[in-house]
């Protein structure tokens, strides 16, 4: 048997290479050369991002266990950029004395979750998929619990791992039933054999909730705010953007490629989930004082919006989905970036701490503001375009009422985003947060995000490029 075809998995291999190099570096490098660990790591990863960003011809290897389509390159690149930004933001946090020795772990764990997502995305078989899923989530638990001496962090870790395993076991049970009813684990075969018998529907639901958990849709979202609050900010941002992004893409692919036959069954499910997620999350978000929790809820409602793209199941929807993830990544990471910069300096995450931030930190508050506006879908920022396209994709399939409900929710979301902006710009504060100077990598990350938010919408190339390779059933 010829294994050379495996070499086609360039993204995975190059990432693996980066990981191994870093691992070796971390273990064997001396005290002096260790100083350069982070720069090296960042450069390596950036190189990896650049090298793997060119889409190739679609191919299957390992008998269809690993299926590549060009679209995946875009998704993986988006994830790479996101990870890069997160790593840049984490730079300072990792240079603290307490974490100095743990930097290697941090990178290794983060990148292994990324690798897991790669496999999840490219998988053509449930076994591969499940392995990917777990590879993506188990290291995540350790990351969440990264800060050993912090009660909150430990609690968050426990909550995450317990819920995650609970979810994945249910999901696994679902997969087993799918196997039982179809006799195969290959997506292509299942697609034809999956006819929608009651047991199969049951199996589908059991399986799907595992993904819903990852995307944290209501009512599978309850872990999200706690974990987001407890975990270290950069990890939270990673959690909220990267793993969620991967999961939504996979959800779309699976629903379209594997469960296309029962579209009439899963569309109502997504419909309901979208409505509930958006509304409940918004209503919760109104009250949040801790900004990390606040962003957690906002990300839940964003996930709800993403479903509007998935529900259409069209190529348009796929393109809009990926585009949305791209924009969402920039916006959310910008917000988290500001958050982490300020938290690392002052340890303040309460909304009231941000009162009058504009007086002392105009730049940071500006970035925060455009990030929030973009999340709220306000032009000329990218968020507006991504939202519009998603609504358009849904409307094209005739989901006017759903779009309408979603739009009414944008009012609520605008309200709470404005609360933060109000805090920063309007509210007076006699002793606001002192002038914060963010370190160089964080600066870069924020600049990248800002530029992204500014231009990704107005310049249509991004979307059109994505649209070229988008696919549907």
């Amino acid at each position, binding site marked *: 048997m010829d294994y050379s075809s495996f070499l086609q998995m360039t993204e995975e291999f190059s990432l693996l290479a980066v990981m191994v190099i870093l691992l070796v570096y971390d273990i064997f490098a001396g005290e002096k050369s260790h100083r350069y660990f982070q720069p090296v790591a960042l450069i390596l990863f950036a190189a990896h991002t650049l090298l793997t960003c060119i889409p190739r011809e679609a191919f299957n290897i390992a008998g269809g266990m690993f299926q590549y389509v060009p679209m995946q390159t875009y998704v993986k690149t988006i994830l790479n950029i996101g990870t890069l930004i997160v790593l840049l933001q984490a730079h300072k946090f990792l240079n603290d004395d307490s974490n100095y020795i743990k930097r290697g772990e941090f990178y290794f764990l983060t990148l292994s979750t990324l690798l897991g997502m790669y496999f999840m995305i490219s998988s053509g078989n449930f076994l591969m998929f499940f392995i990917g899923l777990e590879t993506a989530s188990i290291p995540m638990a350790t990351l969440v619990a990264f800060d*050993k001496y912090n009660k909150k962090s430990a609690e968050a870790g426990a909550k995450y791992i317990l819920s995650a*395993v609970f979810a994945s076991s249910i999901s696994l049970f679902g997969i087993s039933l799918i196997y039982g009813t179809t006799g195969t684990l290959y997506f292509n075969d299942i697609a034809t054999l999956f006819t929608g018998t009651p047991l199969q529907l049951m199996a589908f639901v059991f399986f799907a909730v595992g993904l819903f958990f990852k995307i944290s849709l209501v009512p599978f979202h309850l872990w999200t705010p706690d974990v987001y609050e407890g975990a270290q900010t950069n990890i939270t941002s990673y959690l909220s953007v990267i793993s969620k992004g991967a999961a939504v893409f996979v959800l779309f692919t699976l629903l379209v490629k594997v469960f296309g036959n029962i579209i009439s069954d899963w569309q109502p499910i997504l419909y309901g989930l979208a409505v509930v997620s958006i509304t409940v999350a918004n209503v919760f978000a109104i009250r949040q004082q801790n900004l990390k929790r606040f962003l957690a809820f906002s990300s839940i409602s964003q996930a709800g919006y993403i479903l509007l793209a998935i529900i259409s199941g069209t190529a348009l929807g796929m393109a809009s989905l990926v585009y949305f993830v791209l924009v969402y990544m920039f916006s959310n990471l910008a917000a988290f970036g500001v958050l982490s910069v300020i938290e690392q300096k002052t340890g303040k995450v309460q909304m009231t701490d941000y009162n009058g931030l504009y007086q002392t930190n105009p730049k940071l508050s500006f970035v925060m503001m455009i990030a929030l506006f973009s999340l709220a879908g306000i032009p000329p920022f990218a968020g507006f375009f991504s939202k519009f396209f998603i609504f358009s994709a849904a409307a094209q399939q005739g989901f006017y009422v759903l779009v309408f409900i979603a739009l009414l929710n944008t009012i609520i979301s605008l309200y709470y985003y404005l609360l933060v902006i109000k805090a920063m710009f309007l509210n007076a504060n006699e002793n606001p947060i002192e002038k914060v100077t963010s370190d160089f990598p964080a600066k870069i990350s924020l600049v990248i995000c800002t530029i992204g938010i500014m231009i990704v919408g107005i310049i249509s190339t991004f979307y059109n490029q994505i649209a070229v390779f988008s696919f549907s059933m």
Partner: protein
Amino acid sequence: MDILNNMLSGQVPIEAYLGVSLIMFFAGIYGFLSRKNLLMILVSIELMLNAADINFVVFNRYLYPGQMEGFFFALFAIAIAACETAVAIAIIINIYRNLTSVEVGELDEMKE
């Protein structure tokens, strides 16, 4: 009744296995929801995972004798379960270090 006969005569029908796995699965869920001790919760999760594994094996053995997919999946699943447990245990230890207790009820600092 005839199920019992078949069992006695050595050939166990698939339903029996599935019954067992199903019971294990929901027992696990029940355990997860009801136990107070984190370790016991972990054990319950193991139950759920293993139930799934049994399913795989049984389906493969009875319905699709020709192939090996189910068996392999089961193996992988067991391995993964092991990792999960390891990590979970580690975190639980961490919890114990912080709270000097492994009561799940104590993990409620963050809420609302």
